[in-house]
């Protein structure tokens, strides 16, 4: 436990002592700002019954931020350590592979959530300037953040896996971007095929992350999506663990 906490702290700290962490947060903030400009313009045009979080999700900036930032957040986790050789000093300390994988995932996850905090500010700002107090509901906000967290954990664990496979940060980022976009396209296909009745479409429909995220943004928590995203995250973490362990079988 001590090793896990120590490692998590160190990983998290390294985001903030280097410039990368701030650049990622700034970039996310920039995109977030764009999405809210878009959102406010819509509000000016016509009144809507949608909660603000749903309106935010409907701007699609959410996916852009998710797809672009997660590879950058995760690329250094393993690849950099392998490149500089500190992976060797790390693995020859009395720590288990599981502790290392979990600590890196946790640090990535915490940083990812910190990156999303400005969304909270934007939402509260909108609430301040709209006359309708029902525009922002605490429950809906919580479920939106749950959705952001769950999809985030899927993409962060995917990024961990990509980073563990290579010594180059760029390769790691590209791999996780490719995998991430594939998931995005899978969701797109699922969304297109959702009204067809054949079994392929039925299977595909499970991966309709658009629908799941839309639900979360509306304040609907669907256990099916929660289970799916948790198990996919666990699956990728398991793969990461296997990759880290693999040096013992070679």
């Amino acid at each position, binding site marked *: 436990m*001590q*090793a896990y906490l120590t490692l998590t702290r*160190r990983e998290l700290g390294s985001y903030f*002592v*280097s410039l990368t962490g701030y650049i990622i947060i700034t970039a996310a903030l920039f995109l977030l700002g764009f999405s809210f400009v878009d959102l406010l313009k819509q509000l000016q045009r016509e009144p809507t019954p949608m909660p603000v979080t749903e309106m935010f999700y409907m701007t699609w900036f959410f996916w852009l931020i998710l797809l672009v930032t997660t590879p950058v957040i995760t690329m250094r986790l393993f690849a950099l350590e392998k490149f500089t*050789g*500190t992976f060797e*000093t790390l693995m*020859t300390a009395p720590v288990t592979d599981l502790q290392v994988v979990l600590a890196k995932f946790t640090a990535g996850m915490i940083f990812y959530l910190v990156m999303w905090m400005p969304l909270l500010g934007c939402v509260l700002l909108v609430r301040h300037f709209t006359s309708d107090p029902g525009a922002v509901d605490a429950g809906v906000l919580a479920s939106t953040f749950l959705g952001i967290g769950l999809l985030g954990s899927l993409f962060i664990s995917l990024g961990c896996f990509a980073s563990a496979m290579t010594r180059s940060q760029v390769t790691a980022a590209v791999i996780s971007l490719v995998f991430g976009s594939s998931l995005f396209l899978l969701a797109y296909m699922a969304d297109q095929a959702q009204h067809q009745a054949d079994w392929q479409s039925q299977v595909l429909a499970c991966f309709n992350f658009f629908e799941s995220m839309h639900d979360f943004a509306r304040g609907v928590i669907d256990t099916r999506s929660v289970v799916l995203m948790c198990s996919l995250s666990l699956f990728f973490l398991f793969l990461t663990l296997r990759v880290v362990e693999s*040096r013992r079988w070679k």
Partner: protein
Amino acid sequence: MSDGLMIEVANLTKRYAGRTAVSNISFTVARGEIVGLLGPNGAGKSTTMRILSCFLPATSGTARVAGFDIFHESDEVRRRIGYMPENNPLHPDMRVREYLKFRARLKGLSRVRTRERVDRVMEQFELTEVQKRIIGQLSKGFRQRVGLADSLVHEPELIILDEPTIGLDPNQIRSVRKLIKSLAQTHTVLISTHILPEAEMTCNRMVIMYEGSILAADTPDNLQRLMSGNSQIIAEIAAPAAELERCWAELPEVEHFDVAPVQGDYCRCALTPLDGVDLRPQIFAIARERGWSMRELTRSRHSLEDIYVQVTRREEEET
């Protein structure tokens, strides 16, 4: 298993895809010894150390450190070793004190113990004045000391250092060697190097590796004795070269000689005696008898460098 042994390596082999890095080596290291793993680049030293520090598994064979199997009880082994890999990788974005604290906590030291030990090793390696500096901005010598401090922070029983003096300037090398020697009283040390004088100066025992096998393992003195059968005598004598040559030709103990005039009347004679004969008293007697003046008389002992070259070259010729 006897208690006196820190490392027991038995028939260890490591194969990478298509290449054998270490083939069937066995050696032991007793507690409190400083042992040098010696060999040219690519001899398998680093691989051996990586296996012993539980970073890589062996393809076959076994090794025990402090009585624990490196594969099945790797946790216990890692708790007991301090390992500094080749090129001493560190986190360049951390501060010295912060890094040592991180490593100490990672190695399971309590908060109080961490503070104590970090202070202690920083003092020991003279890092106290740079404790707030960022590692990436330190000079190589300081970084090397940070690496050594890290390998010692949890008071390991065994310290494994892979090329600890590589890339340092002569003064820094000297201070690192001194540090390693100072560890000898309380720790067992295994260091690798391809620089002979280093091993000669710091180690109690040397293991010479070449292309994945152990060629020789003994104390520096024994290795020297083993090889010093044909050491040379150098004498500088003021006499005509022809006369000197005749004189050496008459001596039955001289196997081979070489006379070359140097400045003034002096000639430099290099004499190779038969096995085990010390020619120096005879040469002195001859010079005195004939009234020649002599300004130098030395026996050039083979340095380990020669031995090393001999041993490794012999192997090359055979293959």
